[in-house]
């Protein structure tokens, strides 16, 4: 099979994993050049994807399928359409820059190889997620992004904060992952297909079913946890514990966009209902405003960016919820703009932190002189975030206002929320660009100097693309937005992006209002921060702390359950075991009518027949009595010695029973064993200082006695029922018939033991030998009390 262009799609999803496996090796061989070598993989993927772009722009869908579990009809299909291409290009493109950046950022770090491995594995999972056709594969990659993200957030595992953030992200996103799995299974049951490409063609099969509400809830739970929507937003700022390359890649441009991708992908299946629009717009709006306000509260640059990421994710969800052509086009262009500027800004912030030793916005100033290139990178990103014309961010803002403009009062409300959110974000953009870089120089822990080229290339390239994209509206609209919108909505829609400014266009004035408000926010940032801090203190309770409460509650609950079940009291364990035996003896039998004989229906004559004494001979009665006396003596024995001797009585009696009823071999063995047992017990146990009697409080006595009687009666009853049944003697007859002719032995029991079941007997001998060895080991171990060994007196 030649490697066709379509099959290369599958290769794209696999290559990062291969690179991840090799990364530690490459790191140990190539040292500081490892990142440059590994850079080839994402860069190569990016180029291959670009090669597919032409066909996608022409409206084609490129798909490939390889057998996964053919016996279940499962294929691991991949397909590329406008939407997945935009995501995949963003992931691989930014991923390539991040690999370079990480190599420089963690230069000389002991575990750089491991870090690059995690990073590449994550990229593979993310690419798989956006390229997969099979919904089970999507779930698999979805969970893989959670797991790799967990590894990356907790990369600095020595710090408790990192461990906590990692566990938090894993728990929250995995809850969503499990919801997604259920939703996927329900959708498959409804539609009969695992393939998204087929599911999207089946209009209304999920939407019109009774399970629509369930599926929608589950899918939203998955998307909202992954994409940090309110009220699941709190894990994202905590994930900033990860090294900056991770924050720049996972928690701005890629992983958190997984939920956005899922919602966009499932729009044709679940969307276009009022529930869909209402829920997404409501949650997205709250998230947008919440995140933007949260960003203003912070002084840590990374935290500010993390909070704005939450806001941007909310914005994307609002746009998907609106679901019109303009809204989807706005969603795509905003996704691109955000990914570029956010990754770039994160990288700049990481550089500042790296070179100046702090990332506190109040402690930085005037860095533009010392780090001019970083400043250019920051400015390019921040201006795109601000939404200035000539950047991609401008078009994103224009498109989304257009999407929400005109309509009923709800649409106006959404528009107001969008303007407010964008204005807050614009103010924060100015803050990030101006505060650390302009103004008076402040003393910093380290003497700031320019970051290395590998750390600068990212922000510069991303910022540059943001501007180039902003200069080419025609290309952006036709080659990027149109195919992606087609992929989401299934209808041709080409947004007309334009750089011509028409002052009669109200949308332009909305932009102007946004900028004005943004500048106002920037000027008042300090005052707003003080106010918000005060409010935060007044409330004093956050979702983040609720998470701790839930987790610790879970641990306490687990501890309590363990202690309840695993209490360490042997007699209660045994009581539970025998109580279960009692239940097993009575409950199933009573359900199957095993006790019907107790209530004789009509024929009383039959009942009386059962009371006839069996034809036991007098000496047989005597032996039975002997056994019973032995048993009773064991029970009531006043001393240990009597109990042991009584044990011998009942054993001997049993041997006599065997002898009477045609089992001399058994009788001899039983007798010998019994004698041995009594002798050994007497020797071992009578010279110990032990309580002579079996002390039990009355309630224990009553409890144990009742259970014992129940078990005994149950076994007797079961045996009697067995005896009333017919007896299948085929096996016994076979042994009797073949014993002499085939096995040449007259004693059938012995023939069975050593011939027919010879291996069984071998096992039995092994058990005896094993027990012997264990006994020997126990006895030869010198007296060293365990208590002394534990250091107690």
């Amino acid at each position, binding site marked *: 099979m030649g490697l066709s262009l379509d099959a290369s799609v599958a290769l794209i999803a696999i290559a990062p994993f291969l690179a991840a496996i090799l990364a530690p090796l490459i790191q140990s061989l190539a040292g500081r050049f490892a990142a440059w070598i590994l850079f080839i993989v994402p860069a190569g993927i990016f180029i291959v994807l670009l090669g597919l772009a032409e066909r996608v722009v022409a409206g084609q869908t490129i798909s490939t399928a390889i057998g996964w579990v053919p016996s279940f009809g499962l294929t691991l299909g991949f397909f590329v359409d406008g939407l997945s291409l935009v995501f995949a290009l963003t992931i691989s493109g930014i991923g390539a820059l991040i690999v370079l950046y990480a190599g420089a950022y963690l230069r000389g770090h002991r575990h750089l190889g491991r870090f690059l491995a995690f990073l590449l594995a994550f990229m593979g999972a993310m690419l798989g997620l956006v390229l997969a056709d099979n919904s089970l594969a999507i779930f698999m990659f979805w969970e893989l992004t959670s797991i790799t993200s967990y590894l990356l957030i907790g990369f600095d595992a020595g710090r*408790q904060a990192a461990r906590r953030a990692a566990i938090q992200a894993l728990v929250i996103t995995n809850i969503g992952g499990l919801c997604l799995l259920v939703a996927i299974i329900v959708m498959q049951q409804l539609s009969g297909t695992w393939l998204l490409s087929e599911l999207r063609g089946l209009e209304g099969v999920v939407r019109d079913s009774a399970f629509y509400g369930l599926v929608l809830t589950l899918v939203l739970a998955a998307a909202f946890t992954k994409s940090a929507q309110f009220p699941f937003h709190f894990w994202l700022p905590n994930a900033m514990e990860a090294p900056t390359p991770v924050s720049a890649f996972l928690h701005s441009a890629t992983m958190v966009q997984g939920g956005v991708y899922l919602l966009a992908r499932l729009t044709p299946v679940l969307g276009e209902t009022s529930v869909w629009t209402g829920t997404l717009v409501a949650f997205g709006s709250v998230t947008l405003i919440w995140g933007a306000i949260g960003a203003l509260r912070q002084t840590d640059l990374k935290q500010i960016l993390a909070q704005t990421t939450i806001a941007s994710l909310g914005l994307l969800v609002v746009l998907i919820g609106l679901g019109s052509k303009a809204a989807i086009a706005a969603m795509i262009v905003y996704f691109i703009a955000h990914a570029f500027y956010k990754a770039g800004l994160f990288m700049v912030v990481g550089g500042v932190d790296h070179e100046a030793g702090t990332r506190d916005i109040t402690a930085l100033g005037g860095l533009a002189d010392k780090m001019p290139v970083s400043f250019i990178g920051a400015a390019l990103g921040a201006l795109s975030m601000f939404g200035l014309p000539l950047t991609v961010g401008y078009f994103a803002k224009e498109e989304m206002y257009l999407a929400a403009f005109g309509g009923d009062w709800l649409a106006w409300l959404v528009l107001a929320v969008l303007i407010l959110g964008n204005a807050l974000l614009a103010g924060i953009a100015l803050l990030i660009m101006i505060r650390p870089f302009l103004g008076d120089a402040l003393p910093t822990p380290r003497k700031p100097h320019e970051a290395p080229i590998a750390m600068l290339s990212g922000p510069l390239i991303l910022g540059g693309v943001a501007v180039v994209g902003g200069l080419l509206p025609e290309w952006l609209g036709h080659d990027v937005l149109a195919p992606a919108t087609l992929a989401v909505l299934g209808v041709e829609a080409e947004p007309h992006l334009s750089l011509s400014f028409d002052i009669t266009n109200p949308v332009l004035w909305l932009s102007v209002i946004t900028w004005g408000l943004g500048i106002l926010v920037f000027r008042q940032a300090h005052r707003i921060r003080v106010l918000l801090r005060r409010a935060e203190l007044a409330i004093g309770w956050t979702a983040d702390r609720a998470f701790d409460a839930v987790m*610790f509650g879970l*641990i*306490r609950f687990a501890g309590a359950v363990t202690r309840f079940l695993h209490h*360490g*009291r*042997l*007699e209660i364990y045994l*009581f539970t075991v*025998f109580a279960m035996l009692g239940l097993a003896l009575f409950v199933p039998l009573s359900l199957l009518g095993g006790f019907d004989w107790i209530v004789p229906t009509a024929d009383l004559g039959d009942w009386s027949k059962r009371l006839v004494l069996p034809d036991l001979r007098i000496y047989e009665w005597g032996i*039975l009595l002997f056994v*019973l006396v032995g*048993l009773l003596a*064991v029970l009531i024995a006043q001393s240990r010695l009597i*109990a*042991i001797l009584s*044990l011998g009585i*009942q054993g001997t009696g049993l041997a006599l029973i065997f002898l009477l*009823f*045609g*089992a001399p*071999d*058994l009788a001899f063995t*039983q007798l010998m*064993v019994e004698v041995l047992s009594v002798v050994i*017990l007497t020797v071992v*146990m009578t010279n110990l200082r*032990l*309580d002579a009697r*079996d002390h*039990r409080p009355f309630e224990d006595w009553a409890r*144990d006695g009742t*259970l*014992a009687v129940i*078990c*005994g009666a149950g*076994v*007797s*009853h079961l*045996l009697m029922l067995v*005896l009333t049944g017919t007896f299948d003697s085929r096996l*016994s007859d076979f*042994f*009797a*018939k073949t*014993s*002499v002719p085939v096995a040449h032995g*007259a004693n*059938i*029991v012995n023939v*069975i033991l050593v011939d027919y079941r010879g291996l*069984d*007997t071998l096992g039995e001998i092994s058990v005896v030998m094993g*027990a*012997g060895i264990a006994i020997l080991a*126990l*006895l030869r171990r010198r007296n*060293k009390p*365990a208590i002394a060994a*534990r250091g107690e007196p």
Partner: protein
Amino acid sequence: MDYILAALVGVFVALGVYLLLSRAVIRMLIGMVVLGNGVNLLIFTAGRVTREVAPIVPEGLETPAGAFANPLPQALILTAIVIGFSMFAFLLVLAYRAYQSLDADDTDTMRLAEPENAPQPPLSY
């Protein structure tokens, strides 16, 4: 006849269970033996009891002449008796060593593996 044996099995089992529920290790040992005997008798009885001869083919014959006791349960019980004895011997020595180490034969005081106040799982990350 076999109903009487079935009732006897019940007595064996009841006594075995009662002794196993004791806190004294030596009573538990005795309980193990009694319960084992009860189960052996159960297998024996379930294979149907006859007052007939042992399952031995007389000299010169190919198959047993006339009725004979069921050999299959006997073979099973023979194995069970031996294994039961091995287990009894092992448990006895174990109890003996436990007594030597802990100076007790009360299971409530034997709590080295599962201490009375096990610590709470740690409440941190």
